[in-house]
């Protein structure tokens, strides 16, 4: 259980980025977070992950306050290319977090290969990250987080650079992994369709400072399908609603600034 209570954050003397955010995520839930760009989504995730101490409020994971990165939590960073280590092969990058899981080298390499296969990159194992395209690097970063086998996964626009087909495959992979392992996932996306398609809930943030503008329950069947789910009337209705919430606020902001 993840609880975010009254979380606020400001960078230095700048105006606050986050303002009194309250959020609860139950075990096994997949919550999508959407909001206008620059509204503070990455900041929120960093506070939740324990990488950034908030100026006020608290984050609790399974009842314990988060003051450093919990060891059952993985992060897929928005800036994926810089979070991969250029001096390690792709396989070593993916295998690196498994050191903490007390596995021997052979097991680590095997798990890394499995994770790379799951994101469709078994052939890239011996390459270096900088030899791959942006989309492939992003999938390596996802494979690394999956190989780690965390209970909580925080993903910051994880599919931003991949092509449409791969994106759908990765969305389905995520739903499968969540179904199999019961992982709790917090996913930031700028794609409104995606937020509805993968989410059990969609949290919409407003801008300047970020507040929870809406917290919508996605009442779609658990088993989702790229074609049929997206044509359900509930889906169409929900994506319109989320779209209005995100854009409406942006439009209302404009005359002010």
């Amino acid at each position: 259980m993840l609880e975010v209570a009254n979380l606020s954050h400001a960078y230095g003397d700048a105006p606050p980025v986050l303002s009194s955010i309250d959020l609860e995520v139950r075990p096994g839930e997949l919550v999508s977070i959407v909001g206008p760009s620059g509204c503070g989504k990455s900041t929120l995730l960093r506070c939740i992950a324990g990488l950034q101490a908030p100026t006020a409020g608290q984050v609790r994971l399974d009842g314990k306050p988060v003051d450093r990165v919990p060891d059952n939590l993985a992060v897929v960073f928005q800036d994926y290319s810089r979070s991969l280590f250029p001096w390690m092969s792709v396989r070593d990058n993916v295998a690196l977090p498994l050191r903490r899981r007390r596995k021997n080298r052979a097991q680590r390499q095997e798990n890394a290969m499995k994770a790379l296969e799951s994101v469709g990159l078994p052939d890239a194992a011996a390459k270096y990250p900088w030899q791959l395209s942006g989309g492939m690097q992003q999938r390596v970063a996802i494979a690394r987080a999956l190989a780690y086998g965390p209970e909580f996964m925080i993903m910051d626009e994880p599919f931003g650079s991949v092509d449409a087909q791969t994106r759908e495959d990765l969305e389905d992979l995520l739903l499968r992994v969540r179904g199999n392992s019961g992982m709790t996932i917090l996913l930031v996306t700028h794609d409104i369709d995606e937020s509805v398609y993968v989410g059990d809930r969609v949290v919409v943030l407003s801008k300047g400072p970020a507040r929870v503008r809406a917290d919508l329950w996605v009442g779609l069947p658990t088993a989702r399908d790229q074609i049929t789910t997206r044509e359900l009337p509930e889906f169409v209705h929900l994506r319109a609603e989320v779209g209005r919430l995100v854009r409406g606020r942006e439009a209302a902001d404009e005359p002010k600034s």
Partner: protein
Amino acid sequence: MTAITGDHPAERPTGTNGRRRRPTGVPGLRILTGGAARLWLVALLVGCWEIIARTKQDAYFPPPSTIVRVFHELWFSGPATHLFLTDKALDDFQPSFVNLFCGWALAAVVGLALGILLGRSSVAREILDPVLQFGRAVPPPTLIPFFIVVFDFGAQMQISTIAFGVIWPVLLNTADGVRTVEKLQLETAEVFGITGAARLFRITLPAAAPKIFAGLRVSLGFALILMVISELIGSTTGIGAHLISSQQGMELPEMWAGIVLLGILGCLFNAVFALVERRFLSWHSRARGLDS
């Protein structure tokens, strides 16, 4: 505090689209062919020198052929079982090389350790910065008299001179490299539980390696200079001592042979170092090659 140059600015390999490939092949090959192409100029200069020296018969400028002959006789006309090295070669080279590498290795180890400390701790940086700036500013040969007083003439004095003189590039570059590791890389390590020694050896040092190697390379060049200087002063063995004794005997070809030897050694050390560096930093140069 800034790093000694000789380094390429740390570039991050972002593998997004729009990268340009350099139209070059294996870098080693390029250096070789480029070297061969430039060699004709050297040959021309040596040829001119030979002709002029023979016609002028100036004792100060013996013709290259004489220098080469003396060079060979002095050091490389020994028995095959000794790799053609003469006894004099063993006498001259051994102390010089031992001093050079002991001094350089000492500077590398201490410089690396202090550099890591300084890179990690901003408190240590603030406290030690004035001392370091001053230490770096002292021209190393000025310490020779001091080391002579402390150690008397000999290997200890020479090694200390070299070590003290060449530690700065390693130390400052390591500190700079360690301090400027990408924040996101450290955060990634934190998320995935890579801490302590694992973080130092798998993240921090590899990330700082391009700067560390640049420092080591500059140091190696300095070390050769300081090796000769420390031997020119009151030493009876080593290549520097050979230079002095041939100067005192007015043996100009021998002296020139020593100068040529030092030039060759400098090139050789640089080449070997470049090979080692390429082995450890291939990711860096290749990432840059694809990206920039």
